[in-house]
């Protein structure tokens, strides 16, 4: 038992690191009251270290802590994704006015970011429904506070309250669903659920209710329609850094859990072996992927159509991120590893392009003081480099070559067509046309319109540009040379205990 725990601990190094960083951050905050700027450095170092440890886990595949958590390529991939996002968010925070203006509370900010990262790491590896709920809660509780981080601002606190009420209900629904599933299968461990479902048939109505309630929980996390309502409000109200973090990392962790839950719980492993490379067999004839397909269509369509009407860039990006969740859900619908690999590829490019877009919004908001689309008028002439970068991020988000966003879409559509989900692919493709419209609205304001008010050039410091390049270069490069991301994705779809 002890041996097992010790072994588990050794495989738990990234999470342990984060936990310790969290503690140190808080303690250091108490001790170094006068030097609050040190704390983020500690947290940053901790997250960087945890990410490095996560990289070192690559290739291993095992269950730890009595099967509560697994360490497998799939989990490592998402840890890497979350870790990188956290690192980049810390870099953003250096230049975020919202964060820097409340210097005294930097301890809170950075330690909660660490906690949130920890929650997401756990989400990536959780294989027990209880573990999943706990991980979600850890993430959520931190994010509730962070969303309301600038607590003097009414927007921020309103966002925070909406977020917690919404999140709490979703957790409640999910727990209720889990309890029903527990009743039906007698287990909370996904492998056990799978075994139970494979062995005995269960009441299909009860199963449906349970799954729908659980989907409500996941849907909230990945902001899928109709569980998305919190997203625009919270994204708008929260500080930009937090919004960016939520839009990428939180979504990624949610997807990791969703995929793992469905793939392990409801797939017929016997059929899986027989049809290597083909479409998975479903247990109990329960076509959960159809639910996800509908969800996906609703999500991307609503996200895109509503985004057309947004004038606040943060809110526009919120809807855009909803739409992107819809695209990624398509990859889950197809029920094979190609689809999953496509989702992973998409996440990698999404990381760069979405963070890039948020970063530009943040930089501009710092200078102009507004996130309104009108404040972007003539920006192309005041700050060409930033604007060109924004154009690149936007056309990448819209999915045009030669940017990485295209590769993401390419692999998603490829997976869909390969599994003959042609109608869904067509819907997705048409949606990307709609999405172009609102991205181009911003581009139009930047280049086609003349500046309103000041026409002074806006200048940014070199490090600010360096961070931008850090995001810009991969967005372009992976559009033309995508072998690394695809190979990484291909290697990362492997889950512990499957096949």
């Amino acid at each position, binding site marked *: 038992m002890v041996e097992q725990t010790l072994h588990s601990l050794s495989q738990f190094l990234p999470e342990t690191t984060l936990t310790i960083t969290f503690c140190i951050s808080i303690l250091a905050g108490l001790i170094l009251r006068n030097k609050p700027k040190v704390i983020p450095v500690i947290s940053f170092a901790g997250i960087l270290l945890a990410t490095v440890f996560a990289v070192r886990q690559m290739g291993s595949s095992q269950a730890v802590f009595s099967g509560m958590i697994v360490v497998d390529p799939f989990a490592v991939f998402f840890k890497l994704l979350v870790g990188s996002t956290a690192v980049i968010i810390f870099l953003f925070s250096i230049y975020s006015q919202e964060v820097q203006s409340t210097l005294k509370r930097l301890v809170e900010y950075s330690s909660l970011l660490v906690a949130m990262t920890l929650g997401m790491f756990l989400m990536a590896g959780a294989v027990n429904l*209880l573990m999943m*709920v*706990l991980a979600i*809660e850890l993430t959520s*509780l931190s994010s*509730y*506070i962070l969303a*309301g981080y600038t*607590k*003097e601002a*009414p*927007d921020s*606190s*309103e*966002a*925070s*309250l*909406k977020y*917690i*009420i919404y999140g*709490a*209900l979703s*957790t*409640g*629904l999910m*727990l*209720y669903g*889990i*309890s*029903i599933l*527990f*009743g039906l299968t*007698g*287990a*909370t461990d996904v492998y056990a659920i799978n075994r139970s479902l494979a062995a005995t048939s269960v009441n299909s109505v009860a199963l449906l209710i349970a799954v729908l309630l659980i989907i409500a929980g996941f849907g909230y996390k990945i902001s899928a329609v109709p569980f998305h309502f919190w997203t*625009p*409000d919270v994204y*708008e*109200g929260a500080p930009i850094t937090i919004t960016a973090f939520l839009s990428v990392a939180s979504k990624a962790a949610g997807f990791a859990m969703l995929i793992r839950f469905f793939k392990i719980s409801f797939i017929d492993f016997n059929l899986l072996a027989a049809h290597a490379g083909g479409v998975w067999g479903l247990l109990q004839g329960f076509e959960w992927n159809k639910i996800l397909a509908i969800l996906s269509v609703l999500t991307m369509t609503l996200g895109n159509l509503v985004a057309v*009407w947004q004038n606040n860039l943060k809110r526009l990006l919120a809807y855009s991120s909803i739409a992107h969740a819809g695209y990624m859900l398509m990859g889950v619908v197809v029920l094979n590893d190609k689809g999953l690999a496509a989702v992973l590829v998409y996440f990698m490019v999404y990381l760069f392009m979405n963070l890039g877009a948020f970063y530009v919004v943040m930089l501009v908001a710092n200078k102009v003081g507004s996130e309104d689309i009108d404040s972007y008028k003539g920006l192309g002439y005041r700050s060409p480099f930033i604007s060109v970068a924004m154009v690149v991020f936007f056309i990448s988000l819209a999915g045009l070559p030669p940017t990485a966003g295209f590769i993401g879409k390419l692999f998603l559509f490829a997976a869909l067509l390969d599994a003959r989900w042609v109608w869904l692919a067509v819907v997705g493709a048409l949606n990307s046309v709609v999405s172009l419209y609102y991205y181009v609205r911003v581009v139009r304001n930047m280049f086609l319109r003349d500046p309103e008010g000041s026409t002074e050039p806006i200048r940014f410091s070199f490090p600010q540009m360096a961070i931008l390049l850090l995001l810009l270069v991969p967005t372009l490069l992976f559009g033309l040379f995508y072998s690394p991301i695809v190979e990484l994705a291909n290697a990362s779809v492997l889950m512990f205990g499957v096949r």
Partner: protein
Amino acid sequence: MQDFIHWLQAPGLNHFLIISGILFSLGVFAILTRRNAIMVLMGIELVLNAANINFIAFSRYITNTLDGQVIAIFVIILAAAEAAIALAIVLNIFQNFNTVNVDELNQLRD
């Protein structure tokens, strides 16, 4: 009628499930209708506890293990943590808006 009384007299899994269902519904009802933020949070507690009852009932009648009970304990802790943070946020809201009426918090919309 006789049967019903009989049924009532011999509590089993279904009794618990029905109670839990009622509790869940009440919770949801409270969440959707109460305008005071605190009351909404109370509704959420109801929902969580409905799940707890399910867990324990299933644990008792179906699996015969302690899994359900353990989960319930976790959920209770979780609910406490959530409530703590929620109350802090409500407090902050009250400072900013002078109200805890969730209906009036609609600055962020469309």
